[in-house]
């Protein structure tokens, strides 16, 4: 991917990602190893998309298996987690969606809620088990008239984080826009007021404090994927 495409993509989200953190896949100076690793990562995206079975469910667990206390993780300390005003909060919608009217929390809570006790696996290797509930993303996308033939669903967060997932994973029954965590509304460190919970992908594909959702055919990348982590990162 060239720098222009990257900047266009960032501009589309009103963001300019910091490229200084790139150790490889630097669009300006890709060496042979960068090209090789990038090609293999793209190949791994394809393999994972082929391996993804929309009917295979992530394992679920008993309430007594829930990890307590829950583990906080972000690219900043918990005290710096963004605090979103829930009264004025509106989920902005963009891209290939028929009705782009922003959604309030009350509207999201009025949709059918699904609960799950699932395993959250971090790309670092550790795993925790938690209970989340919220709106099935597939149901929400149908509700707002999203073009389900599009390839990507992208997310922008209150803390500047951004990421995207493939449409088949977005439509998976266990992929939810979570509003509650451990039986209570989400708190700021754990992604208040709305986060994505997608147990068929690694932890960093579960964006927190989502402020914008878009449906697109233009590869949106992600905060970590743009630095060299595998984009699909399925489990």
């Amino acid at each position, binding site marked *: 991917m060239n720098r222009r495409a990257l900047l266009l993509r960032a501009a589309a989200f009103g963001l300019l990602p910091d490229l200084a953190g790139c*150790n490889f896949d630097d669009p300006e100076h890709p060496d042979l190893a960068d090209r090789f690793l990038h090609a293999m990562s793209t190949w791994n995206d394809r393999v994972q998309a082929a391996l993804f079975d929309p009917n295979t469910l*992530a394992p679920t667990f008993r309430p007594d298996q829930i990890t307590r206390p829950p583990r906080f993780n972000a690219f900043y300390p918990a005290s710096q987690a963004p605090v979103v005003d829930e009264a004025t909060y509106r989920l902005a919608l963009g891209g290939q969606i028929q009705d782009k009217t922003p959604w309030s929390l009350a509207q999201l809570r009025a949709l059918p809620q699904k609960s799950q006790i699932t395993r959250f*696996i971090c*790309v670092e290797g550790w795993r925790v088990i938690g209970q989340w509930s919220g709106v099935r993303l597939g149901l929400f996308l149908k509700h707002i008239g999203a073009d389900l033939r599009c390839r990507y669903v992208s997310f922008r967060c209150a803390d500047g984080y951004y990421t995207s997932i493939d449409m088949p994973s977005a439509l998976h029954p266990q992929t939810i826009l979570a509003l509650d965590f451990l039986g209570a509304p989400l708190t700021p460190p754990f992604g208040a007021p709305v986060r994505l919970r997608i147990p*068929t992908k690694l932890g960093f594909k579960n964006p927190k404090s989502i402020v914008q959702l878009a449906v697109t055919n233009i590869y949106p990348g992600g905060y970590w994927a743009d630095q060299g*982590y595998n984009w699909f990162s399925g*489990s």
Partner: protein
Amino acid sequence: MPPKQAKPIHPLPLRLMHWFNAVAIIIMIGSGWQIYNASPLFGFVFPYTIGQWLGGAIAWHLAAMWFLVANGLLYVIWSLTSGHYRKFLPLRPGDVGRDLIAALTLRLRHEKGVYNAVQKLLYLGVLAAGVVIVLSGLAIWKPVQLWPLCDLFGGYVVARYVHFFAMSAIALFIAVHLILVALVPKVLPPMITGGRLP
């Protein structure tokens, strides 16, 4: 007319696969150590790694795995079709005991092109570790899509330990392998040139 060529100790396909495997396994272990360091299973981290940071190490690990597995499958197919696998057989416990004592007392003779019982055991052992490390690696990579495999290893957490111990077994094999080459350096050139069977 050139004289009829003698049979090499190590045929060309075997030499190519050996060195290809050597590069792949070094990348896999080096990048695997960096991935381990991000969330250590034990009270230590590895001082030497490949990939510089977690993202780089994962990129190397998930790239090299295809070459390691492809090369491993080629080796299995080649071994079965060329008859190479017969060099591992028969493997009798009595022979292992005898050759192990001889090896430890430095009295084991090296016969060109023939595996002694300890070699047979070590090579079959590292091949078994190779199968375990690939399967446990797949279980860690895809614990949802390949859940039956993950369950076979006792779940995601246990699979990480299995993967670690399989790596340890392979690393130990490489250490013994290199020590033996250092002790009997004449075995190294044939792995490059092929050598000639007497």
